[in-house]
């Protein structure tokens, strides 16, 4: 059954966890995506006992943890040139795996590979492969899937669906797949085709819409609310059915409302309901 989730990173900064979970539940979600490193209640220093307490609070609110994401990969990536930075990245991904187990979910999200002008593509490819091959054993033992998010234009890596597929072939582990974000594909393709190609390797789906012809400049966002952008949502919905994806749909919204910030949660939940029902 397709289920709705949304990230705790979208909660206003001054909100408590309890207040945020209450909103997520009340606005119609089934789960929450927890972002390691983003909110005070979920940091690298958060002890196991506190993680168990976090799970209890989520469940008391009538929710489940859909997956564990992180906000650390952009500063500490498993493809980093500096071995010490890479080691820290490995450690936070390992912590994601550990906490996923404690939180009762079976998937994590990582931004695997980050190409920059300083960190060239071919090096990133090799290091990311090596890192994921090393992480796969821990993931397998924990029975937690590592979902590598397609960040396309943002991480400038594995831009085409076939290359991403080939990359996962080279990783060669059933515990490493793709956390498919339908809003990240921009001008480089079509989300429905990514879904078709990756099918059983999809660990989770991120939902957001994208303004394909806008480009990204400064703090101007190309991302927008569901149905306001250029994604072909009926085609995406059909592709989800085609590959028999039956898991979490997780809203990853960027646009934050200037006033009444809770409205984003309500609007997005209503849009996901229509997406699930295929009422376009």
């Amino acid at each position, binding site marked *: 059954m397709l289920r709705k989730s949304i990230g705790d990173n979208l909660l206003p900064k001054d909100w408590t966890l309890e207040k945020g979970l209450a909103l997520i539940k009340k606005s119609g979600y089934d789960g929450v995506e927890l972002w390691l490193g983003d909110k005070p209640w979920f940091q690298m220093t958060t002890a196991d006992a506190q993680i168990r307490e976090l799970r209890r609070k989520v469940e008391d609110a009538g929710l489940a943890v859909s997956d564990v994401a992180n906000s650390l990969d952009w500063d500490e990536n498993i493809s980093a*040139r500096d071995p010490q930075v890479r080691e820290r990245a490995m450690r936070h991904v390992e912590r994601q795996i550990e906490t996923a187990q404690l939180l009762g979910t079976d998937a994590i999200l990582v931004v695997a590979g980050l190409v920059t002008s300083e960190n060239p593509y071919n*090096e990133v490819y090799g290091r990311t492969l090596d890192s994921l091959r090393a992480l796969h054993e821990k993931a397998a033992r924990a029975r937690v899937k590592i979902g590598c998010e397609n960040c396309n234009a943002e991480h400038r890596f594995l831009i085409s669906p076939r290359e991403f597929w080939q990359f996962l072939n080279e990783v060669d582990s059933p515990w490493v797949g793709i956390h498919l974000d339908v809003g990240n594909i921009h001008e480089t393709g079509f989300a429905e085709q990514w879904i078709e190609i990756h099918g059983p390797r999809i660990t989770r789906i991120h939902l957001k819409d994208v303004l394909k012809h806008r480009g990204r400049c400064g703090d101007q966002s190309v991302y927008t609310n569901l149905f306001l952008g250029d994604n072909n949502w009926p085609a995406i919905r059909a592709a989800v059915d085609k590959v028999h994806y039956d898991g979490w749909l997780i809203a990853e919204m960027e646009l934050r409302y200037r006033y009444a910030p809770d409205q984003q949660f309500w609007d997005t939940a209503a849009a996901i309901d229509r997406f699930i029902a295929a009422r376009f």
Partner: protein
Amino acid sequence: MPLSRREFVGALAMSPAIAPPPRALCGVIDLGDACVLPESRIGILACTFSKLQKMHRHECLFYVVPGAGPVTRQLSRELVEFTQGGACIIFESAAGFGGFESQREMLAEYFGLQIERPVLLPEGRIPYVDYHWPVSVKVRDFNRIVPVRVPAREVIATIDGIAVASRRGKLIFLGSPIGPALHAGDREAHSWFKALVATS
């Protein structure tokens, strides 16, 4: 078939039973934890003519010390012995990631080579090291370089006019790691490395 005395002695000299065993072309010295860039070791080992070399053996014509961080006096003495035995040493410094002080002392004391503090290269630069010898190629730098202070005739590579590799006697010092580029399959890095081994 009759064999002349000269032919017999010549054949005997060529015989593998009598001639010393051929020296392997290239050995990669495993520093263990003191290799602070393991991908350098992988990249250099991936070159088909390389093999992992234990210390205390003098059977290669060429030795590479990949991704070097902290170095010990024992290693320094071994490297000197290798050069005294006729072998070339490629010392790939990764001191930008650790071990600078010990490298500075070792290179000065045992090889008379002066290196300078690691430099973090600025963003937006042209990201290539220009190798001038033994072939002219451009290979990506690795962000943090270790400049080397040597006479111009000993410089074999520069970046932005800074000397980052040198050749002094049997020691080739690399202040910008090339192993990661080898690991990434960089054609120019491979051609440079092969040319180096062929030349030395």
